[in-house]
């Protein structure tokens, strides 16, 4: 039994995506701010809270937890008078019972899962922020392009399909995903 447990742990460790903490910090800083750039974010509050739902695979639970901690540390009092409600949910649980939120943070998973989540989010008109820029091709709304400098990367088409309008100030510093 112990051997099987160790094999499982090794598998999980090897399978788990490596998340750069600095990038997580940047994303933790940006995500609530991008929410406020949505013209209609007040329609998407839950109990007057900005609810950030961190979607992850089971193996990324630690990173998701870390992300939650960073965000709570960054915004202990919320932002612009709005408290943050940061929650974690696995993709499987979400697809089974989608939990409503103000923004979905998409951690790495299968392409099909991303597509499914994006479809749900599009129906709800909820903003999706993807850790990986590749997910923009799958319909995620916003990501961060990390090169020599970090800039927001926005899929304008998917935003339009989701009925989300972001303030031009954000667009002025962002790169548009073609």
């Amino acid at each position, binding site marked *: 039994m112990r051997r099987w447990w160790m094999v499982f742990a090794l598998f999980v460790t090897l399978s788990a995506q490596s998340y750069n903490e600095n990038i997580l910090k*940047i994303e933790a*800083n940006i995500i609530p701010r991008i929410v406020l*750039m949505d013209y209609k974010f007040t329609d998407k509050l839950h109990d007057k809270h900005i609810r950030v739902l961190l979607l992850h695979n089971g193996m990324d639970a630690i990173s998701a937890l870390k992300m939650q901690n960073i965000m709570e540390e960054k915004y202990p009092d919320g*932002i*612009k008078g709005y408290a943050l409600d940061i929650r974690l949910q696995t993709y499987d649980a979400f697809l089974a019972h989608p939990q409503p939120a103000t923004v979905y943070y998409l951690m790495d998973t299968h392409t099909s899962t991303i597509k499914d989540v994006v479809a749900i989010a599009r129906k709800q008109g909820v903003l999706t922020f993807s850790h990986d820029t590749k997910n923009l091709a799958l319909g995620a709304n916003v990501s961060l392009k990390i090169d020599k*400098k*970090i*800039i927001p990367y926005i899929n304008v088409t998917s935003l339009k399909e989701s009925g989300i309008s972001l303030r031009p100030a954000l667009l002025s*510093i962002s790169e548009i995903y073609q």
Partner: protein
Amino acid sequence: MNRHSLVFKLTLFLSLFFVSVMLFIAFANVQITRTNLKQSEEDKIRIIVNTVLPIISMNMSFGFDEPVKELIESLPKGNRNILAAQILAPNERILYSAYTDQDYTDIFVKVGNGHFFHQSDIIDPVTGEMLGTLRLAYSNTYYQRITGEYEKFLIYTIIPILAIFALFVYVFYKKLSPIRQLSQKLATYSPSNESGIRVEMMRGKDEIAVINNTAKTMLENIQSYTNRLSELNQNLEAKIRKEVEKNREKDRILIQQSRQAALGEMIGNIAHQWRQPINALGLILQDIEDAHEHQELSTQYLALSVDQAMELISHMSDTIDDFRNFFLPNKEKDLFTLDQVINNTLKIVGASLESEEIHVEVQIRDAISIYSYQNEFTQVFINMINNSKDAFKNSHRHDKRIRIESYYDTPHNELIILVSDNAGGIPEAIMDKIFDPYFTTKYKDKGTGIGLYMAKAIIETNMGGVLKASNTDGGAKMLIQLPMEAIRKPGR
């Protein structure tokens, strides 16, 4: 240049006005240009800030340092007029900075260098929080170059304009030169100056030529008229002398006529004066004859009769002397009193007045000496009294009175003499004519019409007084006013 000259004033006014206007336009132009240029430069800065500030604020909001740093550094590189760009934290700490040159690192400290400065708060577009301050120093080189070039342009424009204006003033001054010279000549011109002034004829038909040539013609005409006037004056003087001589001759004739008329009166008066003594003399002679017939003519009786006759003859001789004295012309003024004049008058006309039963009242309140021609003054009284005497002939009054009174009018410092009668007065219709020469209401054989005319002439022309006539209740009144200055002997 004469500062009273119209040309000088006009030139000065035009020059001051033109220079003032040009300076004002230049100054206003420079000010407007500077203001507009400054506004333009500030607009440029504002555009730059409005362009970069949202990007900076957004990046700072997201915590993207690199884009902000890159943007700040790109500002002086992209626009050489941006000398320095800084982003300060709310605590004034410099977060990002970029400079065109290291000399500008303290440009925000050294104020008053003429550059443009701009400062804007960086507000978090998400939260509205103050993220910091963006400061820009913008070069004034362009501004100074453009304003300098514009000022040069203005100077280069104004100098030719001023030169043209100076030329205009010079031409204007030269053009008006004939008028100026003409005015100087006219200022010294006098028609009595025989040499006159010389004005050159100008060619052309402009206003200046017309004025000059007209003035020349006028001066020539004036000179011609002056010469003619001078000749006329000389002739006139001769004419006046001739007319004066004529008038004097006329006066002499008038006086002669007056004397002759008076002589007629005098002869009548002498006849009146002599009638009684002649009768008495005749009676004395008859008495001597009777006394001789009756052997009563003693030596003593004859002597008494001769004495009586001689007294009568003496009286008659005095009468002749009185008349002779009156007819002797006064060659010089002498000092006399009104009493003397009235006594002389009454000696001459007294007998005729008595025969007409005309009573004369004399009241002289102030004994004032008169320095004038006594006989002429006596003739005045004789004429007035004769007029009254003639008037009584038509009045049929029994109480015929002539009143002579005189007094000194202190307020007016003049001697007043009133000669009035109760002979009915002067008809109003002829009141204004009684002093006219040859005007008379008497028959031709009795009046010459020069009595009152002569009286007025003597009083007013010779004695400097005034003679007026008016009516009283029952008669006429002659008023003589003699100013004391006119009748006072000089030196008294």
